[in-house]
């Protein structure tokens, strides 16, 4: 199977007649990390819920490892780990018991669950809470446990809906590290997220949807190549004076600039890295005494913004 997750013509019309997902096609290639992007209400969670058998689709198909989720959910989900929304846990079970419950449903031996459970709870930093009932866990702790349970059976398909939501900054970094380790394995991931830095850091591919429709899909590298203009923030010790404006505009690659403060301005710049290096030299030659010189925002963010704008 070259596309472990395949969604074709998926449509979901909610009770009130609202079309949350509209003839969506989505293909997640094997061993890719697909970032699933889109504004609030775009239909990401709805799509993920259909793929994980929590909602029924109005029409269309979803296949996991070649098996239809609609026709045979049990087989289709056999090799899937999922975190959808922040799930609630059974408050009367401890993390370890929860893993045993889910492991037993998937046919893991008790011994295997214990060993893997210990490693996973260690990985998500819940070891100290292993034997405490989940009832009083905080949202972030539940999210960590959710990630641990998704990895329990070492599935080859992992579906995550905003996996780092609710985590503290360190938790986010830790979860990202866990996800990055998955790159080494034969694992396919579909992950919705609003954190574009996170997506740019861990995803190999992205699919961007809006209003239930696919806007764009492709590898991160290809999409980023499309974004030529970059914004560069510059801080200096000497002010940028009007007599320098023409010389600045004349530097190759500079498309425009905006003064953002007494000792700062930003440049719209188009060009490769060597052109960017030359830009810095030019700025120093102007006698500005550059303190800092960095790309602002993320390339992915610019792409996201422009595509969302176009689709309105």
């Amino acid at each position, binding site marked *: *199977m070259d596309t472990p997750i395949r969604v074709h013509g998926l449509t979901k019309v909610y009770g009130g007649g609202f079309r949350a997902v509209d003839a969506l096609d989505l293909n997640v290639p094997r061993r890719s990390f697909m970032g699933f992007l889109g504004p609030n209400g775009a239909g990401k969670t709805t799509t993920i819920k259909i793929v994980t058998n929590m909602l029924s689709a109005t029409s269309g198909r979803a296949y996991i490892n070649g098996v239809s989720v609609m026709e045979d959910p049990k087989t289709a*989900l*056999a090799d899937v780990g999922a975190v959808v929304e*922040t799930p609630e846990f*059974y408050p009367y079970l401890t993390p370890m018991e929860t893993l045993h419950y889910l492991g037993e449903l*998937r*046919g893991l031996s008790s011994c295997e669950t214990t060993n893997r459970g210990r490693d996973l709870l260690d990985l998500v930093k819940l070891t100290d809470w292993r034997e405490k009932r989940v009832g009083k866990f905080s949202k972030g702790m539940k999210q960590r446990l959710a990630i641990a349970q998704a990895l329990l059976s070492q599935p080859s398909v992992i579906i995550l809906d905003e996996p780092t939501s609710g985590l503290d900054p360190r938790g986010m970094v830790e979860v990202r590290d866990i996800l990055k380790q998955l790159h080494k394995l*034969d694992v396919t991931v579909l992950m919705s997220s609003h954190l574009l830095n996170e997506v740019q850091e861990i995803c190999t591919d992205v699919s961007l949807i809006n209003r239930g429709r696919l806007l764009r899909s492709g590898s991160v590298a290809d999409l980023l190549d499309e974004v030529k203009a970059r914004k560069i923030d510059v801080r200096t010790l000497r002010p940028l004076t009007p007599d320098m404006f023409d010389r600045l505009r004349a530097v190759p690659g500079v498309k425009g600039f905006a003064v953002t403060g007494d000792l700062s301005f930003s440049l719209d710049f188009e060009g490769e890295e060597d052109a960017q290096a030359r830009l810095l030299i030019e700025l120093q030659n102007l006698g500005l005494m550059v303190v800092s010189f960095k790309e602002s925002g993320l390339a992915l963010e610019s792409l996201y913004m422009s595509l969302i704008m176009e689709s309105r």
Partner: protein
Amino acid sequence: MMEAASVVNNRERLPSDLQQMVTVAKYDVLKHLRSKRLLGLVILEALLLGLTFALPLLLGVDPTDDPAGYMSAFVSWVEILVIIGATMFAGDAIVSEFQSRTGYLLFPNPVKRSTIFVGKYLSTLGIIVLMLVVYYGVAAALVFAMTGGGTLLSLYSMLLACAYGAAAAALGFLISSVFKGSTGSLVLTFFTLFMILPMIAQLLPAGSIKPWFVLTFCGHVISYIMISPYPTDLVDSISLGNGEFMEYWTYYPDIGGSLAVMGGYVLICLALGMYLFRRKEMVS
């Protein structure tokens, strides 16, 4: 291209529906055992047993030495006990997965919804049977202590109570598959069994209709079986003055028919509930 090794592995080791059903039931029983509801029910049982036993002694009433008569006093509480048990352990069994969002954890697993449904029902049934066995056991022990005897009728009554429990729980499962909120589901389950059905069973005889199909009416067999001979339907007439009489019937459920009706409730409620549960969407 080759499939990932874990696809084959995870598919092959997937347990059968039956095995998964046992797993669901097992962990659901654990839920009941650790819940405050079970504690509440145990306290209620103790209270009912204690009261039935101690009150006659305190009031100085001479206790009968007829075991069946004595046991009847205990059995008279069983119907309400079953209703409370069915409410607590079935009344929100399904809706709680949705309302408390634990469905987000359970449903993406390779388990059929029908497996989850039946597994949960079995666990509820187990708890209700456990509750009844304990109650009847203690009651029979008290009867033996006071009268030096016992009666086989207690066992029959307990078996009928288990059947009634199974039907009441199935009704609770159906109601909890319909509702969106736990509270509404619990309240409706309780009032259906405690008021609505009994009211229907009260009204129907006025039109000379035997309410044989009303679940709570059938539930009375639990108490009537303690009476020997078993009571039969009878017609009575009351004088309305001026020489006119009005006939009215007192109906008694018959045992075989009631068992059949209870079985019918189990089958219909479970089938309908399972159908609804399979279609129920995990939203919110």
